[in-house]
């Protein structure tokens, strides 16, 4: 297993896997198979895959420890960038198919409707980490500052869940599920950090 994880094939496989939802949507558009309201379907699916892939990216760190597979780190950037890819499609669907690039209306929407505000914030939080995901940027910023910047992903996840929560009309199961998932992923980190800092304190005389 660990041998596979370090192979190039594993990365290629994950790349293809992450593309499947987009290809499925594209095929659905082509065949007219996305139901009565294909644009709504595209919006829903791209939004959901953003949250799922964000969760997958955030799950890497705890999984590395739990499974004892540090190699998993190789996949985190790709998962994060695919989350950003689906977020971009989601945003583009809204800007183009929903608002026909009517920027005045879009600005009013962002200011006036809190679920749109939250969605835009989520995208805003994803943007800097996505742009600085390369090795070059790690060097330029320095590991510590780079890592701090990339903590924006937590904010993106939170804003994304809030965005969905505020959008839903009455059935809150789906946003609640994502909220639970992200809370677990976040707690897994906080616990470790508090244990680490506790350890440090114990070590000082």
């Amino acid at each position, binding site marked *: 297993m660990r041998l596979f994880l370090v192979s190039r094939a594993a990365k290629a496989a994950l790349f293809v896997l992450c593309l499947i939802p987009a290809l499925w949507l594209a095929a659905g*558009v082509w065949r*007219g198979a996305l*139901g*009565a*309201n294909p644009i709504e379907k595209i919006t829903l699916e791209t939004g959901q895959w953003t949250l799922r892939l964000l969760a997958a990216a955030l799950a890497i760190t705890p999984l590395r420890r739990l499974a004892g597979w540090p190699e998993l780190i190789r996949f985190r950037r790709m998962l994060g960038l695919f989350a950003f890819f689906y977020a971009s499609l989601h945003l583009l669907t809204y800007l183009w*198919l929903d608002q026909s690039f009517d920027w005045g*209306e879009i600005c009013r929407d962002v200011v006036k*409707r809190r679920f749109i505000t939250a969605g835009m914030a989520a995208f805003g939080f994803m943007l800097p980490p996505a742009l600085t995901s390369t090795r070059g940027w790690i060097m330029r910023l320095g590991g510590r500052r780079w890592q701090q910047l990339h903590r924006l992903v937590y904010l993106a996840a939170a804003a994304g869940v809030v965005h969905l929560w505020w959008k839903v009309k009455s*059935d809150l199961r789906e946003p609640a599920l994502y909220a639970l998932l992200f809370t677990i992923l976040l707690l897994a980190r906080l616990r470790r950090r508090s244990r680490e800092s506790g350890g440090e304190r114990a070590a000082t005389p």
Partner: protein
Amino acid sequence: MKRHRSFSLPYSMVTPKSVYLSRRSLLGSLLAAPGIAASAERIENVRKSGYGKGETLTPYDAVTTYNNFYEFGTAKEDPARHARQFRTRPWTVRVEGEALKPRTFDVDEILRLAPLEERIYRLRCVEGWSMVIPWIGFPLAALLKRVEPKSSAKFVAFETLYDPKQMPRAAWAGIPLPYVEGLRIDEAMHPLTILSAGLYGEVLPNQNGAPLRLVVPWKYGFKSIKSIVRIRLVRSQPPTTWNLANPREYGFYSNVNPAVDHPRWSQKKERRIGEFFKRDTLLFNGYGNEVASLYSGMDLRKYY
């Protein structure tokens, strides 16, 4: 995007029901489908009406697979899947309250009260999408007159069947059930307000509110309550489900109005199902000539 089927075809040229039922026959036989068989029934002796001339009908498949009927699930495709087994006969409707002759009607009796008409109406959902649907029905007034409303009847309250055994997904609806709706008496007696028992020349599919539903074309779709079991003539404004669930977002009147936004989204435009870009939403869904006078002097922002 979607390959464009021309929607300007008359619906007689749309894939015949028998054809796609046979396509689904495998699935149908797996699910033992009395519901499907029932919904294929044609309704005879339907008079055409002048409503909806020049409108392009929304395809039958879209009308019957893209539904809000939370008792059968909250996703749009849920009702078509989960309402198959819904029993629509025997079915009675209790009409009572401030009336001289309250009584219980068998649904088949109701369908003989008045000549059935085809009414092609626009349907605008509060969520921002719309359809054009050829309903079969007759004015609600014809039923109400049978029970002889008293002058004290100022509003009409409607109730949907709530049977958790037939509607296991209702537990997740997130709205109080049974579903209830209401109209002011003049809205209820308005000739545009109909009870519908069919669409596209056929008996209403379960997911569309069989066996009997309300259609109020100048109001958001949720006012057009489905699968009605009780109609009450009442003295004061009755509670309505979405208003109970979220009073800030859904008012009693809920007239289609592009100038009054839903708190969470604009109502200026709508996506007509089958169209690529959104179109402008019309005040009273374009039925202003007929109904605007009902609201003269009312602040439509306050009474949203």
